[in-house]
């Protein structure tokens, strides 16, 4: 059983590459370049003045991720299981997710009085990022390239993560950034809150320390977004690079080797990285918001 599922997984990994091969040998005009896989394209152009609100690959993945997250929440936590009070497996999974969000994320970072208000935010963040990450490892027919099957133009199956676009992660991190300072000012008042940024040092050190602390607040924004973005980008690039080696070197005999390596990285990403990154993003958001609400702790 296990071997079979591994086989299926390997097949799923190879499939997009094979289709890519088919399309390039037919056309034969462009050479293999993995950077093309991270171009988001422009499917439905929407331009409002200087704003570019086009539906592109990342937006399509975000919409899909939103739908899946809502569906998952309803399925695991809302839909009644039977009419008796017997917890089924589905409910058990829902409770496990809820418990991780509560004990590991919210209670670690948020002070007691703020959990009621901010638990929904951090739990949603965790679930949403997890779904975005996990659907990025399922080959979906959402890509810029097409291939012909029985005379019908179909989009190629491809792996792409919305979170491997820095705009997406920066927007998520920016939400946390804004909420942090709003909550800090709301709970402590502006004067006390901004004073709490300055650590206990002699007054002579202030010209040195204060700019650093202000810079540090913005570095949180950068580090929060880059951590998620680069993790997903690197994961996808690794898999793509290994499979791409077949085409770059033009040698089919290294296929077993690189497909094995790609499968190993795929499993590592799906089992560990996806969940850890979702957890970390939510936990750090909770810690930042919590430390703004009660700066002295």
């Amino acid at each position: 059983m296990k071997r079979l599922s591994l086989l299926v997984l390997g097949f799923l990994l190879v499939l997009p590459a094979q289709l890519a091969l088919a399309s390039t040998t037919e056309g034969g005009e462009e050479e293999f370049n993995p950077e093309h896989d991270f171009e988001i394209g422009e499917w439905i152009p929407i331009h409002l003045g200087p704003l570019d609100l086009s539906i592109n690959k990342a937006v399509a993945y975000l919409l899909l991720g939103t739908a899946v997250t809502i569906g998952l929440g309803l399925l695991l936590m809302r839909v009644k299981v039977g009419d008796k009070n017997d917890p089924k497996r589905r409910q058990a999974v829902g409770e496990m997710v809820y418990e991780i969000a509560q004990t590991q994320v919210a209670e670690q970072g948020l002070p007691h009085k703020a959990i009621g208000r901010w638990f929904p935010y951090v739990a949603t963040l965790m679930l949403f990022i997890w779904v975005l990450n996990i659907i990025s490892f399922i080959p979906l027919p959402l890509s810029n390239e097409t291939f012909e099957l029985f005379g019908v133009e179909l989009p190629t199956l491809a792996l792409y993560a919305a979170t491997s676009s820095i705009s997406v992660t920066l927007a998520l991190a920016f939400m946390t950034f804004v909420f942090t300072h709003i909550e800090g000012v709301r709970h402590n008042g502006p004067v006390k809150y901004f004073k709490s940024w300055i650590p206990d040092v002699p007054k002579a050190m202030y010209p040195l320390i204060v700019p650093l602390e202000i810079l540090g607040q913005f570095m949180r924004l950068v580090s929060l977004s880059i951590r998620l973005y680069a993790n997903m980008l690197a994961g996808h690039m690794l898999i793509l690079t290994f499979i791409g080696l077949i085409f770059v070197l033009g040698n089919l005999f290294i296929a077993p080797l690189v497909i094995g390596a790609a499968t190993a990285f795929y499993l590592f990403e799906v089992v560990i990285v996806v969940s850890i990154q979702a957890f970390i993003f939510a936990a750090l958001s909770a810690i930042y918001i919590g430390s703004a609400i009660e700066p002295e702790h």
Partner: protein
Amino acid sequence: MFNLLAQEAASNVDAGKAIALALGIGLGSLGAGIGIGNIFGSMIQAVARQPELRGELQGIQWLGFALTEAVVFYGLIGGLLAFVLV
């Protein structure tokens, strides 16, 4: 990046860029490797001494792991930026 492998080094500049990128990421992952080893080693020690604290420590462990691991990716992003911009 891949054209390098495919068509051999087109020019010395490209070869230098490739070496710089690989060295940057390699050295970055060296530091993160030490850090991650440290975290898991400490976690094993802590659990061996006080097994009942495992649940509480696990959250901190993964937090530390991700914070350390991110260092590699700062190197990667810096390297890619330098690679594309130069």
